[in-house]
């Protein structure tokens, strides 16, 4: 493991640095932030100073504090949602591949129907009916996202499933769970791990976009997408504040993509 890290290219290291920084900020938010998440402490859109490192937002809250709490809220929500969708999607995919026949058909058709909707449109429609509470958000986004995880895990599992060592285990009389856990899963892990990274990016961007549209995390919770929306008016005054949370979103996503790219490069090499 350490040998791998030592051999990693510059791009992967930059990615890892970005991700680690974000995780640290998210974890230790209350210790890092100088003010309260929702406290109004200054004038509207003040420029950066010693008192307010990044200035203030459209109501007068410290932008730095909001950014720190925003990291925590957005990342935590994204992580939870990704974990849920990943677990559900991967499990369904593995089951569909191993059981085959009717089970596969049924699940795949249901997934196809969900995928027939463009992602954002689907989420918007659901949220318009059930509202944007946090559980509803998690449910909706996870539902949309698990379809992609399903497709990938099913494809990977089917590739492995046709190999004779799986047939050998079947002929032995091994049951469904043994096949999944001991034969298929260990071989499916590399592509699945890479996919987790990509899915997190997607979910993260998705939450940010929904918040930007006003349908994600509701105020006064700090959330990077929402912060872009709240402060968008500043642009016309030549104050480029909304770029800061937007840039933070972009930075984290780039970081993860760099790591995933490196991981994919590694795992394809190992196959030769």
């Amino acid at each position, binding site marked *: 493991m350490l040998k791998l890290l030592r051999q990693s290219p510059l791009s992967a290291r930059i990615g890892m640095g970005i991700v680690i920084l974000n995780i640290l900020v998210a974890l230790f938010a209350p210790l890092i932030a100088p003010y309260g998440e929702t406290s109004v402490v200054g004038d509207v859109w003040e420029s950066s100073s010693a008192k307010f490192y990044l200035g203030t937002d459209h109501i007068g809250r410290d932008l730095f504090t909001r950014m720190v709490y925003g990291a925590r809220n957005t990342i935590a929500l994204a992580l939870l949602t990704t974990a849920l969708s990943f677990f559900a999607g991967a499990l369904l995919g593995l089951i569909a591949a191993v059981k085959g026949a009717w089970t596969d058909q049924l699940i795949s058709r249901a997934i196809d129907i969900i995928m*027939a909707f463009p992602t954002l449109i689907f989420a918007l429609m659901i949220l318009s009916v059930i509202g944007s509470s946090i559980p509803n958000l998690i449910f909706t986004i996870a539902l949309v996202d698990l379809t992609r995880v399903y497709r990938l895990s099913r494809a990977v599992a089917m590739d492995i499933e046709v190999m004779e060592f799986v047939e050998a285990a079947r002929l032995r009389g091994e049951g469904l769970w043994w096949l999944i856990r001991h034969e298929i899963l260990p071989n499916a892990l590399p592509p699945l791990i890479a996919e987790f990274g990509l899915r997190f990016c997607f979910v993260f961007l998705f939450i940010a976009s929904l918040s930007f549209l006003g349908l994600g995390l509701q105020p006064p919770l700090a959330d990077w997408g929402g912060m872009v929306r709240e402060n968008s008016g500043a642009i016309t005054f030549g104050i480029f504040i909304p770029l800061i949370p937007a840039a933070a979103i972009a930075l984290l996503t780039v970081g993860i*993509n760099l790591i995933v790219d490196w991981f994919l490069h590694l795992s394809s090499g190992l196959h030769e």
Partner: protein
Amino acid sequence: MKNVLMLIFKRTGASLITVFIISLIIFIGVEALPGDVAETVLGQGATPETVEAFRKELKLDLPPHVRYVAWLNDFVHGEFGNSLANGRPVAGLIGWRFGNTLFLAMSTAVIAIPLAIILGMLAALYRNTFFDKLISTTTLTFISFPEFFIAYILISLLSVKFNIFPSLAVIDPEMGLGSRIYAIILPSLTLTFVVTAHMMRQTRAAIINVLASAYIEMAEIKGMKRLRIIILHAFPNSLSPVINVVAVNMAYLIVGVVLVEVVFVYPGLGQLLVDSVAKRDLPVVQASGLVFSVVYISLNLFADILSMLSNPKLRQSQI
């Protein structure tokens, strides 16, 4: 030719069934609400009379299957009900905005698709050179950026700092083509960055895949010139996979257009959808959601058919 026609026929049939099913889902989605639709939407403070009127408006007093057929029937005839927000017919609202969204999407696609394909081809041909690495890094960055980030950067640069383009894409029905194009340059540019980046990466991968084929090696062993190999051997076999790539990325176009319309306050269907969702204006949400989905499904169908037609392995010589 016959077996290709059969495939196309089956594929179209499948699409129609899908459209039918999603319309059902959209309909049920509203019906299956826990509690009462009327009360949920109108809120706690609604009077019994308003609730009753609302019910009548949405025909909630009729049994579900009757309602569904009526709704579908109306939809097909272009009758989408009335908006809850302002009582106006939904069809009228959607019509013009749908046209605007199409305009924005088309102008993006017209630039993004050829650009992505050419860049992807070049990156594949000059694989692992500085050019390739540069493009790969650039596109990786762009696919990581949310559309609104790119939008605001462009606005900050080209609108606020250097007053070249308008930050709000204001168009009205009387505008000429020239002014329309001027108004949508920034939103279109934003979308182009994102869509091109996604498409280019996948095109590159598809073409590299084709270039690794045994028949390409055979052509080299026969002593054929590089240009000939690319045009006559690689290209015909790349059509199908590249069309697939374009099709898959149309999804990014459809999703992106919604976000971009909101940033630039562009009067399109995406902005209408977002507004209606915020206002819980369900008839509008249903109708615009359905329109978007049907367009998405049709795009996929079209791409699948093109892909089938351009797949050499489906050809028959009839000799």
